């Protein structure tokens, strides 16, 4: 041992460390170790303290929660968040911006509105007439959006679409000429040169003749 090593050893020994063992800690630890040791003896050495199991369980649960939140977030993002440039790059940009403005939509509402527009635009792209006819009947969707959808449906709808639209008009008793269903039907008719439907006869047409008029028909007595 060198002199330097010797001196350093004396120096370290001259220091008073706070290293007095605690009887309390020793007893608790011994108890815990004996438990672990006994369990290992009983179950073939594969049993871990409950605390370790709980920790593993907590980690697994935490992992699942994180995965769930991530999945939910991504799912929500995919479903509700349209392409950020959807409006900016859309050929009807001005019209769509006006719809958003008229609807006074902000925050989540605006996000949902754009998502609906994006969905409708996909239907238009796929010429999904059934889905579009269904959209035109949905009161939950802003009328301005349905009108926008109706204009596109009018461009590619066929006779079958017309039948569906007429049926919906009759069912919903849509009399307003600005109703999206009517707009779409009218556009298709113009494009396919189909005649406008006959207005169904009014309720008065079916009334029975009055008794007074029958009396009038009786032969006159001489």
């Amino acid at each position: 041992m060198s002199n330097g090593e010797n001196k350093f050893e004396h120096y370290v020994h001259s220091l008073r460390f706070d290293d007095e063992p605690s009887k309390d800690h020793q007893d608790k630890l011994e108890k815990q170790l004996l438990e672990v040791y006994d369990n290992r003896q009983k179950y073939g050495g594969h049993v871990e303290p409950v605390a370790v199991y709980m920790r593993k369980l907590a980690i697994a649960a935490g992992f699942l929660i994180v995965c769930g939140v991530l999945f939910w977030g991504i799912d929500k993002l995919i479903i509700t968040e349209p392409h950020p440039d959807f409006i900016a790059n859309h050929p009807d940009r001005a019209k769509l911006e006006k719809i958003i403005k008229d609807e006074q939509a902000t925050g989540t509402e605006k996000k949902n509105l754009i998502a609906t527009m994006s969905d409708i635009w996909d239907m238009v792209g796929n010429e999904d007439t059934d889905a579009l006819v269904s959209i035109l009947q949905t009161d939950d969707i802003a009328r301005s959006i349905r009108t926008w959808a109706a204009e596109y449906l009018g461009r590619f709808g066929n006779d079958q679409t017309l039948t569906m639209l007429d049926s919906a008009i009759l069912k919903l008793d849509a009399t307003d000429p600005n109703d999206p269903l009517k707009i779409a039907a009218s556009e298709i008719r113009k494009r396919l040169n189909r005649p406008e439907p006959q207005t169904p006869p009014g309720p008065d047409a079916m009334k029975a003749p009055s008794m007074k008029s029958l009396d009038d028909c009786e032969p006159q007595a001489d």
Partner: protein
Amino acid sequence: MAFSSLFRRHYDEIFRYCARRLPDRSTAEDITSQVFLKMVKNFDSFTGDESGFRCWLFRIACNEINSFYRKSARHNKAIEKLRQQPQQQEQLSDDLDHENQDKIDFLKAAIETLKPDHQDIVALRFFQGLNSEQIGDVMHMNPATVRSQLSRSLKKLKKQYRLHRQQTAEEIFSYE
């Protein structure tokens, strides 16, 4: 039970070793617990004798302490501490005076600047009083390697003391 008696026989020295190397008592107790829990888990696989058992425990303790410093990044803090003025106010235990605590803090911080293997060697040598052969058994090293690494570590420690406590460096290390 053999297990219990082994625990009681070695608890004190393992705790003291942890307390001298770690920043505070509570950390020392935590690490001591981990050392013995690891010991229990692998108890059946240990086949050596009593002296081998002691070496094995110290090996686990060294690993746990190094792992603690790696995880807590205290190593960097210790180096930073050495760069600052050594006289720092710390909360003291009732029975430890300020000067003594300051010396201990500085010593721990200086040791933390060494490589993990060298920290183990210095701590086992000066905190536990193990000789080169015993340290070699713990560290799975040749005693000659232990001696040379110990010598290098002491030179580095002396340098740390010289930089920060020039007036006391020669009192602590008289060689060179």
